[in-house]
């Protein structure tokens, strides 16, 4: 085949044609050329440094000079597993991530359902903008807005007082962290849920009602199972983002530690990078398990 092409008289722009036909005959070549630069960047710069960081988890630190010693050991992991404080932090972080995920799913589902299946085109667009708009604002600005709301003399207590309800001391507690996390990650739950709900064909809903199922039955038997991959996809975001975040607990929380801020303080304050790396492995491990579960539920088809 190659010989045949070479033997032909060259037409105008022969070089370009030759390259094109080469790409056409070898489809993998095009893919390779296209993907090599970004992939190389990703693998070399990002993955490699991440792996390096994780390798340090198996190293130690000189307690006097606080310099890293390349001595292979499992002491960091032993410390995490043996000290109840760290186990408590891990359990607290995972519980918070789970609680935020469930809260977001509970809020997002009816909202996304309305957006996808009931609202008119116009209302749909407005709601979409409303969901996405907060993502354009700075994370910190939104946190401070919540501090203003939850503060002792903030909007929340202000409103409670107006109704004659005693003020709630929510600010700087885990409850505040839960509220703010749920708020901040909500769009990440709404959008995949919306996408999944929109993909449920109307004819299936009609078929269910044709077969005698009332609205709630249809929702339970047809819409919910078909939209579940979307909810699970959204939960990947809410769960992992909560698991890794360290700013909200620091700014909103009441001093209780989560994995994120312990990692942060070990790198920034204690300068114990090996231990921070070991602790960072925990959410990575949890997420790996979570993703395996999510894949089983078909979440990746819904993304």
């Amino acid at each position: 085949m190659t010989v045949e092409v070479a033997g032909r008289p060259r037409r105008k722009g022969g070089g370009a044609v030759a390259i094109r036909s080469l790409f056409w005959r070898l489809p993998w070549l095009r893919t390779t050329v296209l993907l090599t630069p970004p992939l190389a960047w990703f693998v070399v710069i990002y993955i490699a440094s991440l792996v390096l960081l994780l390798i340090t988890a198996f190293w130690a630190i000189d307690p006097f000079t606080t310099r890293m010693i390349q001595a292979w050991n499992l002491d960091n992991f032993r410390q995490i597993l043996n000290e109840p404080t760290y186990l408590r932090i891990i359990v607290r972080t995972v519980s918070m991530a789970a609680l935020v995920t469930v809260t977001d799913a509970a809020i997002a589902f009816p909202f996304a359902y309305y957006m996808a299946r009931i609202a008119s085109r116009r209302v749909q667009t407005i709601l979409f903008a409303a969901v996405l708009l907060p993502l354009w604002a700075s994370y910190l600005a939104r946190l401070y807005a919540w501090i203003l709301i939850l503060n002792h003399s903030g909007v929340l207590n202000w409103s409670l007082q107006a109704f004659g309800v005693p003020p709630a001391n929510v600010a700087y507690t885990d409850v505040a962290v839960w509220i703010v996390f749920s708020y901040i990650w909500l769009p990440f739950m709404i959008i995949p849920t919306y996408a999944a709900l929109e993909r449920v064909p109307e004819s299936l809903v009609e078929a269910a009602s044709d077969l005698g199922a009332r609205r709630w039955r249809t929702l339970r038997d047809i819409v919910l199972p078909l939209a579940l991959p979307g909810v699970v996809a959204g939960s990947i975001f809410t769960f992992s983002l909560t698991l890794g975040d360290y700013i909200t607990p620091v700014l909103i929380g009441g001093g209780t530690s989560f994995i994120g801020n312990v990692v942060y303080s070990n790198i920034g304050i204690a300068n114990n990078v090996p231990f921070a790396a070991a602790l960072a492995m925990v959410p990575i491990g949890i997420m790996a398990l979570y993703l395996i579960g999510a894949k089983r539920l078909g979440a990746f088809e819904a993304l």
Partner: protein
Amino acid sequence: MRERAAQELSPKMGRLGAEDPAKGPRSVPPTSGDPAPKAALKLQGVRKNYGQVVAVAGVDLVVDEGEFFTLLGPSGSGKTTLLRLIAGFERPDAGRIELGGRDVTSVPPYLRDTNTVFQDYALFPHMSVAENIAYGLRVKHIPRQAREKRVQRALDMVRLTGLGHRRPNQLSGGQRQRVALARAVVNEPEVLLLDEPLGALDLKLRQEMQIELKQIQKEVGITFVYVTHDQEEALTMSDRVAIMSSGQIEQIGSPVEVYERPATEFVAGFIGISNVLVRDGVRFVVRPEKIRMLAEGEAAPSGMTVEPGEVEEVIYVGMSTRYVVRLERGEHLVAVRQNMDALGDAERFEGRPVRLAWTANHTFVLDKGR
């Protein structure tokens, strides 16, 4: 196997009502005082608009129990909307819908004794074939054992025995179509609604399914209301056909009636090829297969009208050949001849003068022009 399925499924009316507390309107007494309500479905002045668009413009219709009734029309003629009104997916702007003598005009679909076979089948992708078929029975709280038995029978009936555990996406188009049918029939509804159920199948499969559908309908004895735009399909299967155009029914009749004696020019044109002629101020239609092309020098049989013309076009369609003939008086007529002669006979006619002959009793006068 099929006979057994039919026996089990056919004694439907009373039994379903007894084991079916969910269907409220069953207890509503018949609204009309008919001593013998034979009508399964009755529509009176049913209208439906979508904004400015009139989808159904006042339809009156009576479908008898056990009848295979077809709504035939081009796309946009309102036939699918009419079906959706009967199913309860749409609410009529005016008019009245009765099912088995009960007014169901404002009854939601889940309380109507109808089941639908959807154009896209609308099978639940997350359920197995058996679960799909069982869904209607499950919703109606029919005990598991009875349910499984009926699902099994339905599977046998549509010749999908042993495929109950499969997912819909593991089936071919024809098989999915059968599942959709089984899922609807298993509920033994008063009226089964079918919305172009064979539209997505290829010709061969479609023709097989036409015969099979008709057989199943005879066996289970359920009233079928069938929507299609395919005139051949309508003629093949139906007991009666309603031809629809712009939201109205043009004519209702048996396949022979609507084909041989179309009431309007629209009907004549929509079912088969129609040749409209005006002679002595009378508009009439001659079907192509009723026209005889006389060979050169062949004497016209007595009692036949003969008109000369010229063959403009010869269209070979396998079983037969169509000749488009331009008459000397200006009109075009299509004549069809079975290809009984040797190959190549047809081409000889192109561009040549011929004489066309037909008898008066094969023509029909149009009383309503459009």
